[in-house]
């Protein structure tokens, strides 16, 4: 229903703009007529109200159209399998969620982003990671690839091959904040200076 509405809306707008352009090109509307209409819309209180309302309606309709279109695109990105009781579809964003959560479990990773695509060859996962210093990149990336591939196969029950590409975007130094906090904790606490005659009552 929403798709029909948005298609109708855009058809109407395009047809209107086309008609106005043609009318201007063939001098079917004079400049004075356009001016009169604009003056009327600008000055008359009721017509201003209607114009404003129409503007809000058009904005809302355009948002709905965008949502419908992008929603359709998102809907197509799924991995599907069938159970005896019906179909199960897993959106690729769910796979991305899982990959992110898996990577954040590892201490060596500071930041991670994942893009998952379902291709004919299998599931293609492209990761962009920021690693902490003191990490052996070849060993760690191999470990990460194995972990992600095995976990996804286990969690989603997918038999298709999983290709994990890792792009190490940055290697950051070990953060100083936790160390400073520990140092502060380890510092001997200064004894509180007692105020003389503190508890005395006169």
């Amino acid at each position, binding site marked *: 229903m929403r798709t029909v509405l948005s298609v109708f809306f855009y058809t109407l707008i395009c047809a209107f703009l086309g008609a106005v352009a043609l009318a201007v090109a063939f001098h079917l509307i004079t400049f004075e007529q356009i001016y009169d209409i604009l003056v009327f819309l600008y000055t008359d209180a009721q017509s201003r109200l209607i114009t404003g309302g129409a503007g809000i309606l058009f904005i809302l309709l355009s948002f709905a159209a965008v949502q419908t279109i992008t929603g359709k695109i998102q809907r197509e990105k*799924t991995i599907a*399998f069938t*159970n005896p*009781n*019906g*179909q*199960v*579809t*897993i*959106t690729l*964003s*769910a796979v991305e*969620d*899982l990959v992110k*959560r898996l990577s954040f479990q590892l201490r060596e990773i500071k930041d991670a982003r994942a893009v998952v695509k379902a291709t004919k060859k299998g599931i293609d996962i492209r990761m962009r990671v920021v690693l902490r210093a003191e990490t052996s990149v070849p060993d760690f990336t191999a470990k990460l690839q194995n972990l992600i591939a095995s976990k996804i196969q*286990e*969690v*989603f*029950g997918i038999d298709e091959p999983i290709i994990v590409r890792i792009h190490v975007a940055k290697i950051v130094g070990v953060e100083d904040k936790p160390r400073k906090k520990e140092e502060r904790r380890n510092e001997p606490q200064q004894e509180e200076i007692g105020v003389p005659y503190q508890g005395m009552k006169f």
Partner: protein
Amino acid sequence: MLTEDKDDLGVIKIHNNVMASIAFIAANEVEGVARVCDDVRSLVLRGLGKKTLTGAIDVRQEGSDTVNIIIPLIVKYGYNIPDIAGKVQERVRAAVEETTDITIKEVVIKIKGVEK
């Protein structure tokens, strides 16, 4: 959008929202399900302080006495998704069929995300 059942005394009509609510409760009972996804309507109602028990569950009539139920889910991290999906399908089918006597043709599960 009502499923009808004729009785000697009259007609019993079960609204699709009733089946959606049963499916919603049944799906949330399965271990590993974080929640059922919300649609705009339920989000608005929740914003207004009203609880809905349907989420974005879609019940579609398939013929005169069979229905398809589509359930968008967010699952908990660490659980096997095909297992959870299978359990939800079984639980929902059993719950809806037991309570309404309507035949479920298919329970379609859509996994939309993973949460802790």
